Structures are given as C-alpha cells and as structure tokens.
C-alpha cells in the first residue's frame, strides 16, 4: 500500500485533475495518527472536517472585529454586520436564490425544518390534511411533521421505496392525490446514499399545487444545487456538512411564502416596533432570526463556500463518484458483506452489513486501524426497520478522501473477518 499522503490525483473525467494531496494539506486535522495509524476519516456524512480557511475566518472574526450585529453604531459592529451579511450573499449565490431575503440562518437543518413545520405548518395545515414524506427520511424530517400532525390532527403519509433504495414513483404519485398540504423529502439519503430525483418529485407535487421542502443536509456538499431550477419552496441544510462550522443551518424559502408566514420565534432583531399592545415584525430575513445569531460561524460558512467554490462542485462530484465506484467494487469482493442501498443514482456513501458481525464491532475494530466510520441506525430507524437490521456500518466520502484510504478501509474489513472468523 502506498503512503497515504503521497496520493496521485484520480482522473476526474471531463472536469480536470484535482490535486487531492494539496486539498488534504488544507485540513490540519487530517495530519494526525489515531491508535498509531494514519487517520482515515470516512464519517463525512455525520460531519465533515474543516479547512484552515474556515478555522482562520472564525478566528479572525473573534480576534479582529467581533461585535454584535445590526445594532451598534461603532466600527466593530458595522464590520461584523457587513461580514455576516456578506456570508448571506455567498449562500444566496451558492444556491442561486433570487434574493438574500430568502436566506434564513438557523442552528442546523433540523431547526430549518422545524421552522417550516411550526410556522408554515401551523398556518397552512388543518385536521384531515396530510403531510407526505418518504420512507428514507432522517429523523429530523420525520419528527417535526409528527409533532405538527399531533398539534393539528393532520396525517403523516410515507412514500415507500424499493429494496434497492429507490423511491417508488407510482406510489408517490398516488399519495400526492390525497389532501396533501406539503411534501418534504430527502435529496440524498444519509442511510442509503440514494439520490432522489428532486426536480421530478417537485414537478409532480407542483402539478397538484403542493409546496415542497427539500432536506439538503447530505446533498449540499456533493452536488451543485440551484433552488430556482429545482423550483422547491424550501431547501434546508447545515453548514457543518459543507466544510463549515457546526451550529449554523440555512433555510431557503421562496419570498412570497416566507412573507406570508408568521415568525417562528420572538425576540430581539426580528421586530420593527414593539409596544406592550402590539409588535410589528421586521422584514425578511430578520423576521426569522430572533436574538443574537451565531455570527462568527455564519462568517465561517461563508469562508467554506468560498473554499469549495474555488475547487468547484462538479470536480468534487466527479472525484467522489470515482471513490464511490471504487469502494463499491472493493467491498463487493468481501464475502458476507452486504451493501444496503444500491440505487442507480447514488452519491458519496456506502452502507453495509457483514454476516455474523454487528456494525458496532466493525466500527470498533476499524477505529483501532485508524479508520473512522459510522455504525448505528444513522438517525433513520425506519430505514433499518425496512431492511430488518438493527444497524449498519457506513463509510462516507468527502473531497479529501483518496483511493488509498478506501484500500485501508477494505484491509481493515478483512481484519474484522479474521478476528470474528466469519
């Protein structure tokens, strides 16, 4: 096996060659060894590591110009406000949204979805209505809707998927014919790697006048997203999955809908005028950003998008596809290993089980070999129930991963077999 850090860039067909060694050099955390082995970080679907540009941007904010935003007349407050709003513009451009008024900063994808469930849902959903999701949702795109249904007497409907992990479009279409008030689906499944046909699913819902929320937590770092081309009403994602810091999420929403929706939380910064009799709310996007936000980390998200744009998402997608194809082929060679999720359109991750070995034992053994993966139900217990397994092991890729790292993964999995004699 060749040295981990002297990798040759894989051929990214049609998108030019990526210098992965140079990209890796941007990530201080990747230089370490764990348990005496080079760190092979393949838990990117849970959270991705941060390039130095992001760490520096946050550090520069706190050491150079930090103050509260939208309030002070002093220089630091003005500088912080400008940097914060510049990050909003970067997110707008990244999603190709029409206006920065359509970009709301939250804590994470979960809060973005809860905002829509609470504000839009509370206004538009009544007893007898239905919310349609898919069977491959993360808990964060299930539980907020269950809470909404409990509050309103609406029903949660679930579109099923095939054994390969592909949504059954006929069933989805049939369910759309119910009294559905909102469709919410995952763009890229964190448990299966399935890439759902977002544009088609949105068109089918729109043909019946139903608005759509897309959970983009997993898709956002792997493929270019254009919310105007998708035409979704809402798109939610987290900064920490796209090389940014934890603690920041984004909700994109179409302006007309956001304007008609009531505030999610009340407090400072979301008001125009407060008296004890009545409060006038601020305009978008401030209406949905009550209280002091996560200023430095929003700025960190802006730096992450700059960093990623410099590489280009098409090149990222091509590199990760090469890795996924290579990993899938290698894993298939291991007897007793079963890949869960074999959709035609897949991205960035491979979930699997091994005969006679629980995923947690796989995770522990791999960890001692320096390979970090996720083992468990991936906050998608209904998916586990669908396949009748308690848990799976999951290797998920980012731009900095290499073929050599896939080889480390595979070698470690052979050690699992050796130890368990399976």
């Amino acid at each position, binding site marked *: 096996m060749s040295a981990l850090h002297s990798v040759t860039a894989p051929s990214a067909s049609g998108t030019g060659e990526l210098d992965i060694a140079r990209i890796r050099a941007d990530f201080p955390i990747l230089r370490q060894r764990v348990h005496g082995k080079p760190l092979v970080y393949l838990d990117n679907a849970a959270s991705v590591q941060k390039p130095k540009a992001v760490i520096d941007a946050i550090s520069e904010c706190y050491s150079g110009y930090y103050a509260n935003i939208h309030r002070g007349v002093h220089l630091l407050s003005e500088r912080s406000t400008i940097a914060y709003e510049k990050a909003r513009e970067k997110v707008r451009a990244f999603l190709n949204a029409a206006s920065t008024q359509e970009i709301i900063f939250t804590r994470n994808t979960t809060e973005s979805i809860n905002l829509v469930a609470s504000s839009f849902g509370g206004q538009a959903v009544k007893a007898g209505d239905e919310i349609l999701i898919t069977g491959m949702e993360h808990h964060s795109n299930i539980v907020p809707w269950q809470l909404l249904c409990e509050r309103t007497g609406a029903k949660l409907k679930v579109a099923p998927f095939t054994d390969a992990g592909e949504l059954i479009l006929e069933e989805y279409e049939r369910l759309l014919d119910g009294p559905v008030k909102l469709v919410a689906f995952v763009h890229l499944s964190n448990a299966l790697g399935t890439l759902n046909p977002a544009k088609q699913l949105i068109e089918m819902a729109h043909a019946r006048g139903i608005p759509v929320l897309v959970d983009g937590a997993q898709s956002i770092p792997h493929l270019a997203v254009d919310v105007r081309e998708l035409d979704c009403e809402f798109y939610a994602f987290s900064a920490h999955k796209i090389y940014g810091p934890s603690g920041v999420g984004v909700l994109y929403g179409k302006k007309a809908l956001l304007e008609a929706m009531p505030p999610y939380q009340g407090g400072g910064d979301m008001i125009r005028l407060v008296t004890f009799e009545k409060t006038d709310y601020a305009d978008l996007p401030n209406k949905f950003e009550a209280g002091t936000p996560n200023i430095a980390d929003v700025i960190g998200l802006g730096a992450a998008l700059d960093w990623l744009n410099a590489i280009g998402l098409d090149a990222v997608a091509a590199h990760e596809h090469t890795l996924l194809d290579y990993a899938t082929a290698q894993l298939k060679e291991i007897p007793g290993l079963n890949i869960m999720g074999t959709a035609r359109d897949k991205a960035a991750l491979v979930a699997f089980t091994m005969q006679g070995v629980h995923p947690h034992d796989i995770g*522990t053994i791999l960890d001692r070999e320096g390979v970090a993966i996720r083992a468990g139900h991936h906050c998608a217990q209904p998916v586990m129930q669908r396949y009748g397994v308690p848990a799976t092991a999951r290797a998920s890729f980012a731009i900095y991963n290499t073929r050599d790292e896939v080889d480390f993964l595979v070698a470690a999995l052979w050690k699992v077999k050796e130890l368990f004699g399976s």
Partner: protein
Amino acid sequence: MSDLRDLYQEVILDHNKRPRNFRILPQPTHHADGVNPLCGDRISVYLDIEDEVIRDISFQGAGCAISSASASLMTEALKGKPIAEVEHLFEAFHDVVTTDCECPKGLGKLSVLAGVRDYPSRVKCATLAWHAVRAALEEHKEAVATE
C-alpha cells in the same frame, strides 16, 4: 490487532457466536427489556425466581458481540444465585469494565470483559443486560435505557 484481542477475547467471540440461555422462558416471574438508545440495540431478559433465588434466567435480542456475550455470560453467572447477590455482582462487574481495578476473584468468567475499560463507548454495550436484570427485579414496566 493484539490490543483488539484484549477486547475480543476467545470467550467473548464464542459467547457471541453461541450465546447461552438464548431463549424466552415460557412463564417468567420477572421480565424486562433493555434498550441502548445510542445504537437501537435491544435485549430482553427473563427470570424465574423462587424463594429469592434465580432458578432460571434467559435472554433474547440483537446486539453487538460485547452486549450479546455480556448477556450470555451474565445468565451463566446469575443462574442459581440469590437475588441479594445481583446488585453486588453488578457493582463489581461495573467496576471491572469502567475502572483499572483488579478483577475480584468472585467474578469468574465475567472478568473476560475487562478489556471494555479501554473502549469507553462500549461500556453501555457491556452493561445493557445487567441494567435489564436490575429493571426486571424492580419490576419496571417500561423498557429501561442505558442513557
């Protein structure tokens, strides 16, 4: 690999592959489920208690090698023991899997799980079945969690 052998000792791998007392007692006097919310693992324990003595004990469920082997070894250790001893044994076992203490002699085969102490994230796996037994003795109706 060698340090992994400290965790995955032959006895553990054997009990994982061929768990002892792995069945449902037809008419248990005590029963409880243990759930590890972290991983979704679930273990059910069944006890037949007469005159304050565990006459029979069994378990069922799906879990990792550590939780399965620990449950299996626990049933062997507890069968025939007065229930007054359960708490004492659990405490001694807990110390073994969480601290650098010397293994008390009375623990017998249970001490093969001492390697767990170097894997803090796996302590809950090793203690899941014990939590369930404790819950069964306290006659909990709800599934007990390790959290």
